[in-house]
């Protein structure tokens, strides 16, 4: 049997880097469509509640379009919207459920990490003498931060594709969609953390240009002055523009991730060809 030399075969799961690369290529090949949708989504943000629901739904729409490409069933925006639009409020619900859960976990971890870090600082300070108190405190802070990052990304990884099932599957509601993300990511948390990290590195150039550079100007300026206000507004707009560019990438990434998780967990795409009779089309 002949396999392509030097290339992963199509039915095999994707590596960390390949998930990110595939997302970049998906985004690149549908740049105009995705950017237009992302722009519309970011304009909706201004309107509370309904606008946010629109934002969440359009994010899901981009994921659905990307997923369609992956399973060789591409859709146009209209067809995909007809699936997404009736579920508008479910998308908002998923977004709320995930972000509130993450917020609660963040607070919990911060408190737990603070107590643990503080105790560690005190104990180390006690053992090593008062002069080592500073080192103890530093170690305590480091422990707290590490605990916070690891814990938060662990939970984030479990909910990373929370809205994708809702966007892709039939007959599923918001709660089931979140639960499905939880189930699919069970054995892959470490990998997903890696994927999110690499994705952050890849998007860093864009985020740096649109989000960090305008904020650097703010540091030098006096708070409350007119010029500060102007630069602040500019940095806000620039941040939104950055969001328009980055958001489709994340949604494409989630679609690839969902595809890959299903292929690992459920063998999506594993099937034999049609019986011989129908093979001679």
């Amino acid at each position, binding site marked *: *049997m*002949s*396999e*392509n*030399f*030097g*290339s*992963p*075969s*199509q*039915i*095999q*799961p*994707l*590596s*960390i*880097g*390949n*998930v*990110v*690369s*595939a*997302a*970049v*290529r*998906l985004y*690149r090949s549908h740049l105009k469509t995705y950017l237009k949708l992302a722009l519309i989504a970011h304009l909706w943000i201004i309107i509370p509640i309904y606008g946010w629901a629109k934002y969440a739904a359009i994010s899901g729409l981009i994921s659905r379009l990307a997923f369609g490409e992956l399973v060789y069933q591409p859709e146009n925006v209209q067809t995909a919207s007809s699936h997404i639009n009736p579920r508008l409020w479910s998308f908002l619900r998923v977004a709320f459920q995930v972000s509130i859960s993450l917020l609660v976990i963040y607070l919990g971890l911060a408190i737990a990490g603070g107590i643990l870090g503080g105790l560690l600082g005190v104990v180390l300070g006690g053992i090593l003498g008062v002069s080592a108190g500073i080192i103890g405190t530093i170690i305590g802070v480091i422990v707290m931060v590490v605990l916070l990052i690891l814990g938060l990304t662990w939970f984030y990884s479990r909910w990373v594709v929370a809205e994708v099932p809702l966007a892709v599957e039939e007959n599923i509601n918001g709660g089931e969609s979140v639960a499905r993300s939880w*189930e699919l990511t069970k*054995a892959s948390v470490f990998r997903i953390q*890696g994927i999110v*990290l*690499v*994705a952050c*590195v*890849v998007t*860093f*150039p864009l985020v*740096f240009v649109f989000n960090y550079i305008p904020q650097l100007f703010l540091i030098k300026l006096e708070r409350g002055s007119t010029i500060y206000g102007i630069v602040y507004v500019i940095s806000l707009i620039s941040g939104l523009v950055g969001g328009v560019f980055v958001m489709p990438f994340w949604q494409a990434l989630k679609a690839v991730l969902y595809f890959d998780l299903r292929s*690992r*967990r*459920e*063998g999506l795409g*594993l*099937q*034999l*060809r049609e*019986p*011989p009779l129908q093979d001679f089309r």
Partner: protein
Amino acid sequence: MRFFNRITFQTPESVELEFTLAGIGNRALALLIDYTVLTVTLLVFFLGWTVFSTQLFNFFEARNLGIWLIAIFFVIAFAIYIGYFVFFETLWFGQTPGKRVAKIRVVRDDGRLIGLQQATLRALLRPFDETLFIGAFLIMFGRREKRLGDLAAGTIVIQTEAPTASATLIISEQAKVLHEQLIQIADLSPLMPDDFAVIREYLQRRAAMSLKAKASLSLKLAEQVVAIINLKKLPEAVTPDVFLEAVYLGYQQPEF
């Protein structure tokens, strides 16, 4: 998968080789790992140099010593930064620790292995690629994913071949018995190598699958096999999993 850039070479012997380019994700992952290793190395060097410098100051009280020590520090630090990539890419034929983990490799444009010259050029141009993320944008938008260093050195970065693991397959005793019966009653020859590849893929990955998905997938695959080899129905009293194992055995011992 069609979402990766592919590239074909013609060797002088007219053999066609096809490779998949590394892609931005793998290269970012490799960079992340390499820079972590480098940062730790440089940090250790910095600490060592500080201790060394203070010792030196205790001996001599020369005025300009401090400036010299700082200058030498930067020269050596730069040498470590460049040397890291040159050393590994030369020694490991186009791989660094990060690239090993990401399963990618630097090769020349014609597919040959790189040498000291290419590794050095790539490493020396790395700082330029880093400025304003020129390299990242070039990799993302270029057809052959070449950053400045690759353009200068005439290299590309490709994915190394995935080893086809077959040793990890567990075939039950029950399946071996069934296989003996199966070759009596059915003809496995209509199954193509691609079909066996799918079955093998399933057997290798089933352990990581959820129970429910596994049950329905194995049944689906078994029914597809039954249809292809013109069996009336699935053998009774056997799970689809065992049936698939038995069919797979037919591929390992071809009778034709």
